């Protein structure tokens, strides 16, 4: 019996758990750190530079480790700052994650230490969690090296090392989740002892403070006594209960759902997006792989169901006579690669099959439709099947755009351009510069036929 228990424990410990969650965490955290770098890019010298708001001498006196310590030159600062961005990008992409995770943390830690006066709660928690997760496998999914990782697992070349690595991974994940629980419990505990939280009015004082106030929106909450009290108590209850909710599958899912709502609301109402994304990224670790896979299957099914529904709806709409009357014949240059690619793109957007594309290089086309070969060389033509109206150039483009829903935003622009006369000029400018590569079928003994020649030869044959 004991042997079986130990064996089962050994199997569980030596198999890496929550690998998808760890990879989702990597991407969410990576993007959030990247947003800190990029959002404050214009402000970097003020916030962290050698001549920044927190004096370099004070920084040296109060910090024991930061890459920014090594020099007070602007060039050095810029180099380290940009290397930090690079490390974060590589980490997010999952490139050599074991190494880039360390580099990312070193650069992030250095940035935090350079100016600790601008840190939020989220910065602190993510620093600790990233430290734990240096021992975790964050690159098994959605990363540059993911495929290589699974190949290595299949080869099973170093089983002992893999088992040891798996044990470290699992403990790192547990440590990160424990850190999240500690954070919730301690903040909840402190709040529960606070006078304003006990009286149920803390949310009022928070949301009325300028830093956390959303003008015009916060008032909707804080002017409502019941809502203010309810939200204040719910916050404390959620934070205190969170660690205990994780022990059961159903309550865990409820905790995750509650946390998503809770942190999204804080991000939105209190203008603290970075903080909340950091906390929510740790949530990714709370979901086991089998639940992610089930979610993936459900989303796939949902996608198929929706796509099917849309397809059948389109089929019904296509049959409407009023729509059939709008069908358009488009004469394009089949020797122009740009034109061929454009036709392919337009066909994908033609949900209601309103367009029929015909290359005017086809010898029969010009004769059948009574078109002018020289004009076709110059401009694309369209023919409305109901009225036999022929349009060319920008007018033809406009006719196409009217029939394709995704291009509707462009219709007013095209219309104005056509009215101003600019549209036709731009069209002609592009059309004149298109590269024409005749197809081998229209070339005989190294001589290739142009449209005009094609017409003539067709007539001769006719």
């Amino acid at each position, binding site marked *: 019996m004991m042997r079986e228990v130990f064996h089962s424990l050994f199997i569980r410990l030596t198999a890496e758990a929550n690998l998808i969650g760890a990879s989702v965490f990597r991407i969410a955290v990576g993007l959030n750190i990247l947003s800190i770098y990029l959002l404050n890019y214009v*402000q970097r010298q003020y916030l962290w530079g050698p001549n920044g708001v927190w004096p370099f001498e004070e920084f040296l006196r109060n910090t024991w480790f930061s890459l920014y310590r090594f020099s007070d030159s602007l060039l050095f600062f810029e180099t380290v700052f940009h290397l930090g961005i690079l490390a974060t990008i590589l980490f997010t992409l999952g490139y050599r994650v074991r190494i880039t995770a360390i580099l990312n943390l070193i650069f992030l830690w250095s940035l935090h230490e350079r100016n600790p006066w*601008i840190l939020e709660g989220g910065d602190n928690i993510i620093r600790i969690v990233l430290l734990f997760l240096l021992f975790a496998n964050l690159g098994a999914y959605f990363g540059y090296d993911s495929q290589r990782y699974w190949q290595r697992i299949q080869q099973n070349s170093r089983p002992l090392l893999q088992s040891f690595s798996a044990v470290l991974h699992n403990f790192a994940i547990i440590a990160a989740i424990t850190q999240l629980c500690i954070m919730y419990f301690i903040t909840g505990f402190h709040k529960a002892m606070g006078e304003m939280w006990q009286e149920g009015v803390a949310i009022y004082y928070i949301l009325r403070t300028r*830093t956390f*106030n959303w003008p015009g929106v916060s008032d909707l909450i804080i002017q409502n006594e019941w809502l203010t009290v309810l939200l204040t108590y719910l916050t404390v209850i959620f934070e205190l209960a969170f660690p205990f909710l994780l022990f059961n599958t159903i309550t865990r899912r409820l905790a995750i759902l509650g946390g998503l709502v809770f942190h999204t609301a804080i991000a939105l109402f209190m203008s603290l997006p970075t903080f909340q994304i950091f906390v929510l990224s740790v949530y990714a670790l709370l979901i086991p792989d089998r639940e992610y896979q089930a979610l993936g299957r459900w989303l796939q099914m949902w996608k198929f169901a929706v796509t099917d529904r849309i397809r059948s709806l389109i089929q019904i709409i296509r049959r409407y006579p009023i729509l059939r009357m709008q069908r358009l014949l488009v004469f394009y240059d089949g020797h122009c690669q740009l034109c061929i690619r454009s036709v392919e793109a337009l066909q994908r957007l033609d949900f209601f099959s309103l367009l029929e594309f015909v290359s005017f290089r086809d010898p029969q086309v010009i004769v059948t439709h009574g078109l002018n070969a020289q004009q076709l060389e110059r401009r694309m033509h369209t023919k409305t099947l109901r009225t036999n109206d022929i349009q060319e150039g920008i007018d033809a483009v406009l006719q196409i755009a009217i029939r394709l829903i995704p291009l509707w935003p462009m219709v007013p622009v095209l219309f104005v351009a056509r009215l101003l006369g600019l549209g036709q000029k731009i069209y002609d400018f592009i059309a004149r510069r298109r590269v024409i590569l005749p197809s081998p079928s229209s070339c005989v003994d190294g001589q290739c036929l142009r449209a005009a020649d094609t017409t003539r030869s067709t007539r001769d044959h006719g």
Partner: protein
Amino acid sequence: MTEETEWVDVSESYLMHHQQYRGISPRSRVVKLVTNSILAYMFGDVNVAMIRERVCRDEKKAEEPLCKREDAVTQLRRTQAEILLARVASSACDWIVGPAKSDEVRVRIAIHRFPRFSERHLPDSEGTVGYMDLDWVPYQKVAAVR
């Protein structure tokens, strides 16, 4: 000849930008900087402040350095906050009077006490405003806020 300007609300523009973009703004961390330094100037370290709140409820301990806010940690934080606020002001003076044109700067902390919960229907203007003036300090060259 040295001229003294009127008070200029430095943090208002940072706050407005922060509010307008719901925290997704390059000014949001600047708001955090100003808020943190003011809190540090007034209360010292957050953790020490929490201990003080508990310990100093006992009237017998009123004369202890911790309760008089004269403990080492609070003093250090206060000094650091003064340095920071002076630099925030110096940087602000660059766009108020022109780059490196100031000789000395002075910080005034305005504390707005908005109406309490029982008077929540009243506008912000019905609250009270108190001021804390810091000493004049030499202007320092600091990178500009963008």
